């Protein structure tokens, strides 16, 4: 049986800032329905790698393929126009560490905004779907509230609903719980667990070891911009192969 086209393929991505290489020749393949977590110490390049996937950072070298189609560059190697890039991004959902909800819109308006104004979905349809998604993340009661009045955990759940409203092929999570007070982390992880269980393809940069261990099919450990170890959670957590991975895990256990 031919191998199915991976939903996301990252080929030899490298990125430097001010002459310092932050991501070095990283390659990954993610198949439909998989949840992979990217772990590593601060400064290991995990977030930068994630942001290269949807070209919020422009990779210096390497390519990203979404369902087989190259992201950021066209067939002829020319850079995509802003318009073309924007179009591709609608297929990738992103959840940020600092939530980044749009404060001038209510919770529901945040969720329907991009579907209506970018995808051209009718407002009525978007509202129906938006209410459904808010219910899913447990915040239907807050539909008319402004982000200003929400807790961090609530804001992040809205952010997840907002990204899901675009019906993306893959969801990218950039340290989604790192900015949350500890007691609010659980409600967000719970939503993410449900999403994974439903078969969403997810790439999660995180420090939450429990999530990586229990929910993901694959763990990618990065240090100094490189992929140092890559295996299933069982193997990684119980039997890390490299010294760097061992050192990292002792800090978190």
């Amino acid at each position, binding site marked *: 049986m031919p191998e199915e086209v991976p939903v996301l393929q990252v080929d030899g991505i490298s990125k430097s800032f001010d002459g310092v290489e932050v991501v070095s020749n990283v390659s990954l393949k993610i198949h439909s329905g998989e949840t992979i977590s990217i772990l590593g110490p601060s400064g290991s390049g995990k977030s930068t790698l994630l942001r290269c996937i949807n070209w919020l950072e422009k990779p210096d070298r390497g390519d990203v393929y979404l369902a087989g189609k190259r992201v950021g560059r066209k067939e002829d190697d020319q850079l995509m126009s*802003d318009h073309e890039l924007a179009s591709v*991004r609608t297929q990738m959902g*992103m959840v940020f560490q600092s939530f980044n909800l749009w*404060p*001038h819109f209510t919770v529901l308006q945040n969720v329907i*905004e*991009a579907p209506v104004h970018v995808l051209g979905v009718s407002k009525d349809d978007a509202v129906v779907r938006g209410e459904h998604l808010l219910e899913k993340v447990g915040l239907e009661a807050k539909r008319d509230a*402004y982000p200003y009045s929400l807790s961090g955990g609530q804001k992040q759940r809205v952010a997840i609903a907002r990204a899901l409203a*675009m019906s993306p092929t893959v969801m990218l999570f950039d340290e989604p719980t790192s900015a949350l007070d500890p007691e609010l982390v659980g409600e967000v992880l719970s939503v993410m667990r449900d999403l994974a269980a439903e078969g969403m393809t997810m790439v999660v940069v995180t420090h939450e070891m429990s999530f990586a261990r229990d929910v993901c099919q694959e763990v990618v450990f990065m240090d100094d911009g490189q992929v140092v170890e890559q295996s299933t959670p069982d193997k990684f957590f119980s039997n890390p192969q490299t010294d760097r991975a061992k050192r990292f895990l002792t800090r978190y256990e």
Partner: protein
Amino acid sequence: MTDWEIVLKEWPRLASGFGTTLLLFGISAVGAFLLGALMVGPLRSRSKIVRIALRSYVDGMRMLPFLIFVYLLFYGLPTFGVKLDAWTAGLLGLTVYHCAYVAEILRGAWDQLPVGQTESAQAHGYHGLRLIRRIVLPQLVLNTAPVLGNQLIYILKDTSFLMIITVQDLTYAASSIQSMYFVPLEPFLIAMALYWAISLLIEGFVRVVHGTAKERGLGHA
């Protein structure tokens, strides 16, 4: 006839002048705001040429007296064969001069806007004018309502400069009545009261917008 009776008899003149002031103010305020909003994006453009050209224009307008700019349009342009009547020169002057100020106010606010706002918009497929119009601009306006309100009041006051190039605005009307009938006090008192009233209305409007901003956690407290 008492002075007040004279002024009352001449109320059409004052009304006409006030109407001219309001019309000039209204059109140029809207124009300055629209142009300024269109200019913010390019002001922060990646293209060095565009950025420097617009930067020079904005800095230039902010270091030039309004009247000199109007003089340039009204007395200077005929040298190049472009003859504008006073009204057009005045309207153009108000709009082009003040849109630079609006652009600068909005640019300053955009620099303060958390970068995550544009990033999350981009991640959701926004770019270009749509990104600015839906996501960035509303926040900029809500954050700078008081400063924009002040700029509106400056636009209102600058309309009076146009009487120097013979536009028949409110100040011109007051001055004509004064010189025709030698009633120095009353026409000016009415004119000043009218400018004051419009200013208070603008400030009231700003308070409403600022209140809206605060509800959403915007407006730098």
